[in-house]
């Protein structure tokens, strides 16, 4: 396992160019997706067809292999997630996880704070369900952590789950269950959430995003165990040893 900094991780994902095929008779829908993915590492091809009522998209990996397909309506939902706290998800919401899996390791750009919170909830929810292991989260600034303090205190007191949070600068508030690490380095530039899976490779996941403009994020999420291990190893060696 190699420790991977957030900047290195982002570069790795950038090299894995994917292809999105859009099957629809609507040129405006295809153009919109082309524009939306123009700055990501995704090539968009429009396969024009008027033969189906509902269009769909198919994703091909960097190896050219088919990875998955889903309807345009569902794809829209993935691209514009809505916020929900982890404990409000019912068991039928496994679909959300499948949809997030679909875009694994695909870069997203211009996510705003609301969308970042929703994407983060996916990982926080997994940690909540497992109720064990360690959840790592980088909040960049103290104010961002203060906003999410209740959520993270609740996560840290869930079963055997621990939560370690990072901010750039100093921490002037107090936390009961949470471990708060305040430092510099990459912490101020990246929003990240990583769960170690409590020893299970199937539960490991991470989200990493750089704030390139104020409130606009560029990043990816992954469920690849070795990738997640590398990110956590980097956090441990840089900020916790």
């Amino acid at each position, binding site marked *: 396992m190699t420790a991977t900094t957030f900047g290195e991780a982002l570069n790795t994902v950038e090299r894995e160019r994917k292809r999105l*095929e859009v*099957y629809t008779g609507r040129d405006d829908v295809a153009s919109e997706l082309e524009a939306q993915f123009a700055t990501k590492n995704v090539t968009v091809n429009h*396969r024009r*067809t*008027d*033969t*189906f009522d*509902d269009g*769909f*998209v*198919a994703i091909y990996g960097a190896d050219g*292999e*088919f*990875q*998955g*397909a*889903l*309807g345009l*309506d*569902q794809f829209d939902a993935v691209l514009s997630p809505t916020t929900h706290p982890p404990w409000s998800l019912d068991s039928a919401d496994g*679909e959300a996880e*499948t*949809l997030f*899996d*679909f875009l694994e390791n695909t870069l997203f750009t211009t996510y705003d704070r609301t969308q970042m919170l929703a994407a983060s909830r996916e990982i926080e929810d997994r940690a909540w369900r497992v109720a064990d292991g360690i959840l790592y989260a980088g909040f960049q600034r103290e104010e961002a952590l203060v906003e999410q303090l209740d959520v993270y205190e609740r996560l840290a007191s869930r079963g055997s789950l621990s939560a370690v949070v990072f901010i750039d600068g100093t921490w002037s508030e107090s936390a009961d269950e949470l471990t708060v690490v305040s430092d510099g380095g990459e912490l101020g530039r990246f929003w990240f959430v990583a769960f170690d899976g409590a020893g299970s490779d199937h539960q490991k996941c991470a989200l990493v995003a750089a704030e390139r403009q104020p409130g606009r994020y560029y990043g990816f999420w992954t469920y690849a165990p070795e990738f997640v291990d590398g990110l956590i190893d980097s956090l441990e060696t840089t900020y916790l040893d």
Partner: protein
Amino acid sequence: MTEENSLDERSTRASDAEPWSADEIFGLCSNRDARIALVYLSDRETATIEELATVIAGQSAVEKGGVEGRERHDHARIVLHHAVLPRLADHDILEYDSEEGEVRDVDVPDIVATVLRIDG
């Protein structure tokens, strides 16, 4: 030259062909994957087996309101290669180049297209 021969061959086959029987039409449309492939092919003359497998996976995803992964795609490809495309080729609806994975000279008969529309 090849193209001319191919066109001659098709017109001869078409003129010699028996009218479509109800059994033949319903037989062709009885398989879900075949129906999706026929609907997609009804407005184009060429496609690849890869494209058709993707269309079948995509339409299945729309119907179930979720994601279809590699398994569905692989299954569709196998069904297309071994059953659907050879059968459609036997009925002169298309030519299937199994080595290149290409489908050419597609001509879905109106009667089949009508049945597919009823099927919705």
